[in-house]
C-alpha cells in the first residue's frame, strides 16, 4: 500500500549538486545503521536499538528543507534524524556505545539522542509522547513571533494514541507552526496498521481538525522534499500546521531484538519492498539522467565508508562516563 514510486520523475540538471547531497546523506544513514546493527550483534551497543534502514528518504528529504533554527523532535528510531540534523556520526555512534563523548553523554543511548545546539530535541521512547511536546515548541515560536517551525517525526502506530488527537486539535485551533511527519512504515512492532486503525489513511485524520495534510511516497526523497517544503512554508508564512503522511517501509525488524519477518509480515512482502529501495531509486534515476558516473557513485560510497568507520573507531576508543555522572544532571543547579 506504499504509494507507487514515480519512476519517470524527471530530474533537473540544475539541481545535480543537491541530488548528490541527498544521495550521500541517505547512503550515510544506511551505512551508519548497518554498522550500528553489527555493533549491536557484537554486544557493543545495548538496550533497544531501532534501525532506520528502508526509511532513509523520509528524514533525508524532509530535513533537507529545514533551517538550523527550526526545532526537530523524533521518536526512538532517530539515529538518522540526529545525523541529518548535523550531529556528527562520531557523537551519535559514541552515544549508541554509551560513551562520555556521545551526544547525550552516554546517558540516553539509542532511543534518547539529543543535540540542543542543533535544535534536535530528542529521542523519545514513549510512543506519541513527543507529539504535544513538538507543538509546545510551535507554541513558543508563535509567542516569540519568529518564522521558525517545529517538526515532529513519529510512526503510524502513534496516531492511535490520544495525545496525537489532542495535539492536532490544539495545533489547528491555535494555529501553531508545526509540521507533523508521520512515517508510515505499515507496522507498529508486529501490528499492521489496518489491524489497529479504523481509517487506513493517516493523512485523513487531519480532516477532523481542519488541518492541511498530504500523503507522499516516502521511498522517494525528492517527493518528500517537495511536500515538506510546502508544509514548512505554510508554517513560516501562514503560521499553520500540516500533517504529512510518508508511506515508507522498514527493512529490518522492529528493533534489533525482533524478527525481520514472521507472524506479522511475509518475506515476499519484504522482498517486494526492497525493490523500491529509496537509495537505489535515486541513484538509478541520476545515472539514467547522466548525472552520476559509476566512478562518482563509488566515490560517494567510499567517502561514507571512511566517515562511518571513523565514527565506530571513535566510539570504541572513547571513555565511559565518569562514575560521578550517575548523580549529575538530575537537577540543574
Amino acid at each position: 500500500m506504499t504509494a507507487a514510486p514515480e519512476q519517470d520523475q524527471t530530474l533537473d540538471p540544475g539541481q545535480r549538486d543537491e541530488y548528490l547531497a541527498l544521495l550521500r546523506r541517505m547512503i550515510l544513514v544506511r551505512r551508519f545503521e548497518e554498522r550500528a546493527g553489527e555493533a549491536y550483534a557484537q554486544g557493543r551497543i545495548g538496550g533497544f536499538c531501532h534501525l532506520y534502514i528502508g526509511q532513509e528518504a523520509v528524514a533525508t528529504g524532509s530535513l533537507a528543507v529545514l533551517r538550523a533554527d527550526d526545532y526537530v523532535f523524533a521518536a526512538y528510531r532517530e539515529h538518522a534524524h540526529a545525523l541529518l540534523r548535523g550531529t556528527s556520526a562520531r557523537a551519535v555512534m559514541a552515544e549508541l556505545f554509551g560513551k562520555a563523548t556521545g551526544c547525550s553523554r552516554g546517558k540516553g543511548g539509542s532511543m534518547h539522542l539529543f543535540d540542543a545546539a542543533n535544535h534536535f530535541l530528542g529521542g523519545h521512547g514513549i510512543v506519541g509522547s513527543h507529539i504535544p511536546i513538538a507543538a509546545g515548541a510551535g507554541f513558543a515560536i508563535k509567542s516569540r513571533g519568529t518564522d521558525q517551525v517545529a517538526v515532529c517525526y513519529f510512526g503510524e502506530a502513534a496516531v492511535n494514541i490520544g495525545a496525537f488527537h489532542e495535539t492536532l486539535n490544539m495545533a489547528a485551533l491555535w494555529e501553531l507552526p508545526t509540521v507533523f511527519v508521520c512515517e508510515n512504515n505499515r507496522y507498529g512492532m508486529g501490528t499492521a496498521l489496518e489491524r489497529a486503525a479504523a481509517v487506513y489513511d493517516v493523512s485523513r485524520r487531519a480532516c477532523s481538525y481542519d488541518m492541511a495534510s498530504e500523503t507522499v511516497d516516502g521511498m522517494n526523497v525528492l517527493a518528500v522534499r517537495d511536500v515538506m517544503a510546502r508544509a514548512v512554508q505554510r508554517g513560516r508564512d501562514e503560521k499553520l500546521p500540516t500533517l504529512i503522511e510518508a508511506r515508507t517501509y522498514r527493512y529490518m525488524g522492529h528493533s534489533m531484538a525482533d524478527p525481520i519477518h514472521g507472524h506479522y509480515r511475509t518475506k515476499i512482502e519484504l522482498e517486494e519492498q526492497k525493490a523500491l529501495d529509496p537509495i537505489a531509486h535515486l541513484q538509478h534515476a541520476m545515472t539514467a539522467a547522466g548525472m552520476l558516473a559509476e566512478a562518482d557513485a563509488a566515490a560517494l560510497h567510499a567517502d561514507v565508508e571512511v566517515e562511518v568507520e571513523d565514527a565506530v573507531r571513535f566510539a570504541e576508543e572513547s571513555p565511559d562516563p565518569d562514575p560521578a555522572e550517575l548523580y549529575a544532571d538530575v537537577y540543574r543547579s
Partner: protein
Amino acid sequence: MPVITYRDALNQAMREEMQRDPTVFLMGEEVGVYQGAYKVSRGLLEEFGPQRVVDTPIAELGFAGVGVGAAMVGMRPVIEFMTWNFALLAIDQVVNSAAKMFYMSGGQVPVPIVFRGPGGAALQLAAQHSQAFESWYAHIPGLKVVAPATPYDAKGLLKSAIRDDNPVVFLEGEMLYNMKGEVPEEEYIVPLGAADVKRPGQDVTLVCHSKTVTVALKAAERLATEHGLEAEVVDLRTLRPLDIPTLRESLHRTNRCVVVEEGWPFCGIGAQVVDDLQREAFDDLDAPILRVTQADVPMPYNKHLERAAKPTPDQVIAAVRRVAYLD
C-alpha cells in the same frame, strides 16, 4: 514436579483461568498474533480466539478504560501493558476509575480486573524504560498490588488476582521471565496478601519482593559463608495489603532488618515497611532498619552507570553488617 519458566507459569495461569471462566479475556498490545511482546500469551489466541485474546492499537488509556467498563458489567478482563512504563498513559483509568468505582458507588459496582505486565529495569533500556512503579500503585486505596518473584508464586498469585473481585495491579519482572522453577501439575492458588519466607535464618530479616528476592538470596548465601550470619529472606509477594504479621514474627526472632527494593528510595515500599515495623515491632529492634534501593536518579544508559544504580548483593551485605554492628 515440572520445572517451567516464570513466563510459562503466567501463561498457564491465564490459560487455566480462561478455561475455567468464560468471562475472563486478555487484551493488550501484541498479545495475539505476535504471541506477546515477551511471549507470555503464547498460544492463547489460537486456543481462545480473537474475541478473548484481543490485540489493541497503541492506546493504553483507551484499552485500560475498555477493560474497566467491561469489568463493571460482569467480565473479568486481564489487561496487559507491554511494560508498566507505558501504563503511565493509562494511570487515570487505573487510579481514578478502577480503584474508586466500588467505593464511590457505595459498594454497588465492583471492578474485577487485572492490570499486568513487566516492570522494573532490564538491561540498558535507559530512563524511560527502566522504572519500578510498585509504590505508585501501592499508594492507592482500592487497588491490590502484587509482584511475584518465582514461577510458582507467579502462577498461583495470577490465578488469585483474576478471581479477586477487586482491581489488581500485577507487576511482573521483565528480567524474571526466563527464570525457571518448580510448578506443580495439579491446580493451586497462592492467596493475595501473604508474604513468604524464602529462606529461614535467625540473625537478620531481609525484606524483598520481585527481582530483589534473588538479590537478597544471593546476599544471604554470602552472609552465611563469608560473614557467619544467617539471614531470613521474606518475600512480600503482595505489596498491598502488606503482610505485617509475617514480618513482625520474623523480626521477633532476628531483631534486625534490611529492606531491599528495586524502586527509588523516596516514598518507596521500604519506607512503608519501616513505618509499620517501627510501630509494631519497636521492642524487637536492636538496630535501625536500613534500606537498599535503586540510586535516586533516572536510569542511565551506560552499562557501568546502570550497574551502579541498581541494588546489589554487595549493598545488602554492607547494610546487614551495619545493622549487626559489625562495621
